[in-house]
């Protein structure tokens, strides 16, 4: 009994490690066709699902272009007639590509180019907007709760903030689509779905999470330190700036990084409001795309190479968030 129990416990603990490793391996294996096809260029290629087509007769003409160094070393040559699709007929186009993909090499030589640059840039920028917006507000709430508000107010508001942190992210997305998007569009102009709206909705979503973690960090500051500073005649601002923040620094930075990681991988809050278009947002009020949203919207209608490309994207996202979270854990939030 004793040894069985220990084995079981040990097995359960290793299962966690096993799942994490399996995720990385399975994603890599599924992404392999795409990795072999596009390599690192995938990260810097801004076209998505654009077809490169070659008429057999056109090969000779444009062979010189190939020599002067285009990305691909196969017999396909860039055609000027690439068409950029817009979001409305994206689904249909994608299906067309899939069939093209399957019949590739038979009659019409074509190759579909996928690149992750648009979603990667969209992910990073929406997360950055979210951070710029949420850090001051979350810090304001944390300071307000722990240093300014009287106890009778701080407690219920604190509980409310923690409860709000548990609201499913899809709610934030829906609210963003129907209320916040039009609100922002009426102020800044532009579309009701855009990079800016996505970033702000993300920001609002992480505020309760970040505020609750930062408040916990701030409340670890010993009263003795604060009282000593007050006794020296320091004002509240000086106490917060020179005593509280330096003491709770690693906890606060850790909470910011964790929120960053959460915003980075967030799907549902963004899916409603970013637009899902494969183009860079020229202005912040333009729609664009982010990695989780691409994953959420395109999985059902993908197969073969286009599916493998999605796994490649998932792998990139996994690596990005893994790094962010690992940094937070190993440098800032070491437990004791």
């Amino acid at each position, binding site marked *: 009994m004793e040894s069985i129990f220990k084995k079981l416990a040990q097995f359960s603990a290793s299962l966690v490690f096993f799942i994490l490793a399996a995720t990385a391996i399975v994603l890599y294996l599924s992404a392999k066709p795409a990795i072999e096809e596009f390599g690192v260029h995938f990260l810097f290629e801004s076209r998505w699902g654009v077809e490169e087509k070659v008429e057999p007769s056109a090969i000779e003409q444009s062979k010189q272009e190939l020599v002067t160094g285009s990305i691909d070393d196969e017999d396909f040559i860039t055609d000027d007639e690439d068409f950029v699709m817009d979001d409305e007929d994206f689904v249909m186009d994608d299906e067309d590509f899939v069939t093209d993909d399957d019949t590739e090499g038979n009659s019409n030589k074509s190759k579909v180019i996928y690149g992750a640059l648009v979603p990667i840039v969209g992910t990073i920028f929406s997360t950055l907007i979210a951070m710029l917006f949420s850090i001051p507000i979350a810090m304001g709430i944390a300071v307000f709760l722990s240093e300014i508000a009287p106890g009778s107010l701080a407690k219920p508001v604190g509980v409310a903030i923690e409860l709000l942190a548990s609201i499913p992210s899809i709610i934030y997305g829906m609210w963003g689509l129907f209320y916040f998007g039009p609100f922002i569009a009426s102020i800044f102009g532009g579309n009701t779905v855009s990079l800016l709206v996505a970033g702000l909705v993300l920001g609002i979503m992480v505020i309760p999470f970040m505020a609750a973690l930062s408040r916990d960090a701030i409340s670890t500051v010993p009263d003795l330190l604060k009282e000593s500073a007050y006794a020296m005649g320091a004002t509240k601002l000086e106490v917060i700036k020179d005593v509280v923040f330096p003491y709770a620094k690693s906890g606060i930075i850790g909470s910011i990084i964790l929120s960053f990681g959460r915003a980075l991988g967030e799907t549902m809050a963004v899916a409603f409001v970013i637009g899902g278009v494969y183009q860079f947002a020229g202005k912040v009020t333009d729609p664009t795309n982010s990695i989780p949203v691409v994953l959420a919207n395109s999985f*059902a209608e993908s197969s073969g190479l286009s599916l493998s490309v999605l796994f490649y994207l998932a792998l990139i996202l996994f690596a990005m968030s893994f790094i962010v979270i690992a940094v937070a854990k190993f440098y800032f939030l070491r437990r004791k």
Partner: protein
Amino acid sequence: MRLFINKLFLVFSTITALIGLFFLAWILYTLCSKGIAGISVDVFTKDLIDGGLRNVIVGQLMMSGVATVIGIPVGILAGIYLQEYGQNSKTTEFMRDLSDVMMSAPSIVVGTFVYAIVVVPTGHTSGWAGVLALFILMVPIIVRTTDDMLNLVPVELREAGMAIGASKYHVTMNIVVRYAKAGILTGILLAFARVVGETAPLIYTSGSSQFWSTDLTGTFPSLTVSIYNLATMPDDKMVQLGWTGAFLLTSMVLFINLIGRYASNKKRR
């Protein structure tokens, strides 16, 4: 001057707090006003195909429930291992960190993983795939809370158990876990509340069905995925149903959270 800047700072801090709370209150207000408007008996007695939410609510609860039932023993055992058998070695510490990393991994990536190992081989979406995705999301949370709760158990209790000749298994199960029971239970409730609201990992693992189903081997009805689908439909009636679903989902999550909070408060007293 110092005092003036101090005042300014306090006002500024309070204002930012108010701005944040304003947005959060706005969300809750929309949710309630939109959601309550759509509540009727039909919502609970009809399936999605007939304009109700019965099948998707039951489906969501069933998937989360099964995931919880599988997740509880695995999570608790892993937590016990980390705390009781790990002896704070480097490996244990490493596993603890990995579990934390997994806890914050993007849920959509978990979805792609399950899609690759379940949906691709079987060829269709299924309730079990959804259960697996939720299970993977849930286990690290239970591990973390169990680990933390067991850490609070005084070492004297363990020593006392050992001293009367009880085996490590007995000490762990009958003394340590029993002592930490309330805390672990709260952790499980919170973990359940967390996965019940998950959408991203379910979109292409469980899919969502409009019909009544309790067969986990087929495409399964899911409340969150249905909300996502309903909200993007052009039909106002469908959108209204989506809001009602969103309201029910949020009330459910908040309610479970409140129970968990109440339980852990009671224990402390």
